[in-house]
């Protein structure tokens, strides 16, 4: 895919403006930081030092969820799953957080060829979609959001999305709201109904099986599809070579997600492993 030049990354500290549970086990944290608020691009992430000691040892990466340049803040949205996110959930407003960023490349939008974008978020994969929808609207691209979760209670940031677009499709695995089943099938159904595909594209973030399936759907309809990946990250800056994903290109069997990603064309990645 076209190479993008990421914004300069640095080590920053920022004050936490709030950090609250927005759904069971899911928190949203707002950090005061003018530079990130102004310069970060959709799909980029920050790498947070969640503790001053060695537990956990590595930083923890989180997508930038939303930004507000005038108010100098940005948000992350995260699920509490292990020691790092547990510690993060304990941070109180007023405390100072240390992070590296903005890191990685970003979703690419070209208004000359795209009029409508499908933004597909699975679970916490919704995180980059708020900043992305905002970004697209500024570029006159119409965002249609597809949001899949296990159950209604996990839905986050709907008001943010609704403020940006009225086209929001929801699928839940348990059928508690929206379509029952996987969000990929809603995307498939949507695409099937279209009459032309050349001004469409897809942006997606979520579990690998979802991205894999979505890549297949996109290929079927010949719609470009950019996916944002997650892997374990030792450094986040391209130094440890720990964050690889297998590609379909035997000349370059791996891509490094932190530096060459996290955003890739779906077709580049080999999700089979």
């Amino acid at each position, binding site marked *: 895919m076209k190479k993008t030049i990421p914004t*300069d*990354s*640095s*080590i920053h500290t920022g004050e936490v403006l709030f950090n609250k549970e927005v759904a069971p086990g899911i928190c949203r944290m707002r950090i005061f930081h003018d530079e990130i608020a102004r310069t970060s691009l959709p799909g980029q992430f920050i790498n947070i*030092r969640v503790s001053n000691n*060695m*537990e*956990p*040892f*590595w*930083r923890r990466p989180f997508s930038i969820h939303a930004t507000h340049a005038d108010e100098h803040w940005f948000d992350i949205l995260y699920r509490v799953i292990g020691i790092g996110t547990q510690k993060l959930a304990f941070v109180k407003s007023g405390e100072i957080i240390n992070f*590296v960023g903005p890191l990685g490349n970003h979703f690419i939008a070209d208004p000359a060829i795209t009029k409508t974008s499908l933004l597909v978020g699975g679970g916490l994969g919704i995180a980059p979609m708020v900043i992305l929808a905002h970004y697209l609207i500024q570029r006159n691209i119409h965002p249609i959001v597809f949001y899949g979760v296990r159950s209604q209670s996990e839905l986050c940031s709907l008001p943010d999305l609704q403020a940006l677009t009225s086209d929001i499709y929801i699928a839940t695995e348990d059928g508690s709201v929206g379509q029952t089943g996987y969000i990929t099938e809603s995307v498939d159904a949507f695409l099937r109904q279209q009459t032309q595909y050349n001004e469409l594209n897809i942006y997606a973030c979520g579990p690998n099986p979802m991205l894999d399936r979505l890549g297949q759907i996109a290929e079927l309809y010949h719609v470009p599809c950019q996916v944002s990946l997650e*892997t*374990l990250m*030792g*450094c986040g*800056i*391209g*130094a*440890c*070579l*720990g964050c*690889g*994903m*297998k590609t379909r290109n035997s000349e*370059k*069997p*791996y891509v490094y997600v932190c*530096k060459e990603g996290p955003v890739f064309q779906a077709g580049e990645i080999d999700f089979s*492993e």
Partner: protein
Amino acid sequence: MNKLAVTIGNLTLKNPILTASGTFGYGNEYAPYFDVSALGGLISKTITLNPRAGNAFPRIAETPSGMLNSIGLANVGIDAFISEKMPYLRSLDTVNIVNVAGFTIDEYTEVVQRLEDVDGIDGYEVNISCPNVKEGGVAFGSNPNITAKITANLRTITTRCLIMKLTPNVTRISDIARAAADAGADSVSLINTLVGMAIDVRTRRPKLATITGGLSGPAIKPVAIARVYEVAQAISLPIIGIGGIMNADDVLEFMMAGATAVQVGTANFIDPDVCMTIINDLHSYCEREAIQSVGAVIGSMIM
């Protein structure tokens, strides 16, 4: 006079802080975070004759106060290194040490031979201690005869500073150090990672695709200090200490144990500007303690 300057063979480092191979890429990765030229020296990712994609993933795992890796010497290969990475490294105002490895004894010679013609290289660190490759690596570095052979071969073809990087996964590291010293090395650096392993008990799968890997970080610092001390009693060459350094106190600990310089590895992943912080803190230490030369700290442990 620069209080932090130290000497390794024919090299003067402006301070004792080097970067550990494989943790600092080819230098440019860290350019956004501090002025890389401030380093005492930069040791780049191990270079091999051919490009290597490295081992399968997952390649890294978090462990108590440390991490495991099984990168497997993924690197761009010597050609791309010379054409793509050297220009940036050459532009830096710091000592440039290239870490090299081979999969046969002769390959080491071949790699260094190729680099001899390249400008802007101040020395070689010879990786005979990688635990993550099948041939060569730690198998060479745990054998004093092979260590001596590789060292002697390289000594005949280069006058550049020659540093042999040793593995701790041996019964007596001082035997290997002595072999390297007797065969003409200018210095030994230690330690490379300890062989380690972790299993995810939920999935019952090893946390590394290669099953075992190399343990680094603060967890191994006590082992590294003991090895540096052991080697310092055994040979008179300058020693470069490596293992778990997170801050200036850790550097002083290595130097007191007998190291002339140190390498900062895994810590770069946690704080990409940690080397700059350490260099500044070493300056302050020398001021505060009225130390004229940091060299006075070397081997200064009181018994």
